[in-house]
């Protein structure tokens, strides 16, 4: 589901509930994407959460783990999140998701901000 028009590769998460299983599926998709061509490997990756209305506790924990693994594997190319609803934004702050992901308000923001999308999101 990567969008070739964007400098940032965006994967859309299927909703409405983010569960441990859906994060596992996403991790598999990311692993497949990482085996793509070399040019793709250099593009920042983002997850579009616009379809997500709720998240289960184990889904949230799995997302945190995924963010940590990605940040560890490629510290200069962290995953970004975009399209978070108001409820999901609150959950993200409560669970400290910003320490694992760069968060953008929407896909347009992601497209406009591609010049800054490589910044590190990890706390020092």
């Amino acid at each position, binding site marked *: 589901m990567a969008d070739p028009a964007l400098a940032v590769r965006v994967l859309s998460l299927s909703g409405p509930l983010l569960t*441990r299983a859906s994060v596992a599926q996403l991790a598999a998709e990311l692993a497949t994407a990482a085996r793509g061509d070399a040019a793709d490997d250099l593009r920042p990756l983002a997850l579009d959460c616009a379809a997500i209305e709720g998240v289960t*506790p*184990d889904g*949230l*924990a799995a997302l*945190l*783990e995924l963010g*940590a693994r990605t940040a560890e594997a490629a510290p200069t190319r962290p995953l970004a999140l975009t399209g978070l609803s*108001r*409820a999901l*934004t*609150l*959950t*993200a*702050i*409560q*669970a*400290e*998701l*910003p*320490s694992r992901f*760069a*968060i*953008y*308000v*929407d896909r*347009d*923001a992601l497209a*406009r*901000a591609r*010049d*800054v999308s490589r*910044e590190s*999101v*990890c*706390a*020092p």
Partner: protein
Amino acid sequence: MRALIYELADQPGRGALEIAGLCLLVRQLEWLRDMGIEDVVVEVATDPSASERAALLLGPDPLTAKARVVPTAQPIGLEALAARAGLAEDEPFLALPANLLVRAQLPAFEGPTAHTVAPPPFGGDIPAARVVVRTRAHDVADEGALVPGWALAVNDVSTAHMLSCAVLGGQADGVLIHAAEVRPGIWLARGARVAEEATLVPPVLLGPEARVFAKARLGPNVVVGKRALVEREVVLSEVHVAPTTLVGEASRIRQAHVDAHGLTSLADGSRTEIDDPLLLSSTSYRGPAPLARLLAALLWLALGGLWLLVALCARLVGRRALRTLRFRNTTLHMGALGIALLDLVPALWDVVRGRRDLVGVAAESALEDAARAPRQEGTFAPPLRPGAIDVAPVLAPGASAATLRSMWRWYLENKSATLDRQLLAGRVRGGSALPPGAQSGP
């Protein structure tokens, strides 16, 4: 025109400081609304008050209905924030630092421009502030013209309290007090109650549903936060009491910011932690629910005999059946038999005594960490509440210590009877065989 409220690099969370009963962030949004700007992007950097600010911004208040929140791990700077908010390179926006309270009438602006706002007419030698309209591509370097009004950078509880007192004293134009002035200088918000025998010396502000008991003496310059409770014979002057703080009977406090865990001096900023619930505690948590205590008592009665028998046998072979853990101002009991069900028994006794919840964080290492950690640095915010039945195996199965810590934080923010029931059901279905004390902590 959009406005961006951005965090300052070395001092995130200033927006949570209270100015005469409302936090600075709300005061900023009020001013922006008065200026006709409702499309506001707010950076919320991770710090102990981040959830509180986020809940306020993302809640049902019409003032924040159009506010958009950009969560960050740490302050990322204005340019990066504008990018994450989706502003075009040439789109003008008003840049407002999170610590700046402005009460000035800016002229209509079309493009990048700067304004100088004079310091307030109180508070001594304070530098003037700059308010800038800029774009992502174009910053404004000059000082700009002086506009009527005032602005003040609020960087600590001391400045916030000074400003609150100025507001109550009628010196700070343009800052509304959301309370009724029942006598000159005495302000009571909705639901605040004062005992007849209490004495209030103006200026004093009591927040919504705050209570002051008999023979207490408050003032001058006292602000009592929302749902705070001031017990009998308490004497407070030059004090800010944080929301949901209980100030214990006959306490005498002067020139300090008081919260449920201690005092911060308004004179020099020094912090004193107080672990005595008779002096200071929180009104928002009153121990486990009666039903949880009843359930714990029944379980304890059902398992207590068997535990005693096994504990005696363990004693005969030189093994300990019980450990104690000093947790803040109480002692918790931890089972040490290595049998999950029986190790629950001592913890159930703690629930019956009202010292921990039935469901919650029970990992010994996590409790030790929380007991050691300085609470002001927000290792666990809100403060960790220990439980008997550990939720970690269902909350973050197989997760790393860092993830588990984040999930505990989320859990404590969202703890409710419904969530606990769901997690308990998951725990029963999942059937983790590990005793509460054996889960890996942070």
